[in-house]
């Protein structure tokens, strides 16, 4: 069974459209591409959408109250893909990056090859730059 990882950031910022859009726009500036995935299409072949269209997609998805929260498929450069989710965490904005494919790995001390969490943490810090962090946590599922 393949391992899945996540980086979850809860921000000291209200869960609202303005703040989500700001993060999506920062993502665009640092090289994120957002996809409008349609059923029966591969994610990568789906149409590319702007940050504003992505926000609209997220708001539409929110109406269905999906367990993983409103999610958008993204590319974050060099064929690195994943999902970005936005949750309401007690009225605070929680931003999660998960389902990374392929997983970026690195050879560490003692020749252990593992996920390079530093890459993903730095990516999330850049994405949410300008917002105060309440909580950050790594997940595996």
């Amino acid at each position, binding site marked *: 069974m393949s391992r899945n990882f996540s980086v979850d950031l809860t921000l*000291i910022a209200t869960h609202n459209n303005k703040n989500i859009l*700001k993060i999506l726009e920062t993502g665009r500036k640092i090289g994120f591409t957002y996809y409008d995935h349609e059923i029966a299409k591969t994610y990568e072949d789906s149409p590319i959408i702007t940050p504003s269209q992505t926000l609209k997609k997220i708001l539409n998805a929110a109406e269905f109250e999906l367990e993983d929260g409103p999610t958008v498929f993204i590319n974050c450069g060099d064929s690195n893909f994943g999902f970005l989710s936005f949750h309401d965490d007690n009225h605070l904005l929680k931003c999660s990056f998960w389902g990374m494919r392929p997983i970026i790995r690195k050879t560490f001390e003692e020749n252990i090859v593992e996920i390079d969490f530093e890459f993903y943490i730095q990516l999330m810090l850049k994405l949410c730059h300008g917002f105060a962090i309440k*909580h*950050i946590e790594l997940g595996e599922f």
Partner: protein
Amino acid sequence: MSKSHFVEVKLGINYSENNMMNLLKKAENAGVIFYDHILGVRYEDSPTLNVDHALQKLIKNMQDCDADHSLFLEIPQKSYTHLWFYNNEGLLEFHLGSFVYLKEKHFEDSITQIDFEFYIDFALKIARDFGIQKLVADSID
């Protein structure tokens, strides 16, 4: 009531004195100064320690149930932190906390908060060669 902030990192290397030393050396290379705190003396006025003595102090304190298990460090940009080592399922975990001269920043929504990015960056800098299994940053009242 003031908040207490912390960063916890579980590494992908065994809990051993050798690996504690490796981590302290990374910290030293990152510009950290180790202090030999003595009761009744201000932390910043305590004598400094080299990396060998810093490890000896930590080990000695960890063996003494009544002693504080932490080491007091100055990290670059004039901030201070305590460092603790723990054995988490056989792997080395370190905690940073009880920050002195807390780094704060002005964020969105006009709030001044701890600059967790600063402390996470420092934790990543000293942990990057060992593989990160877990990273949590949070605050408690």
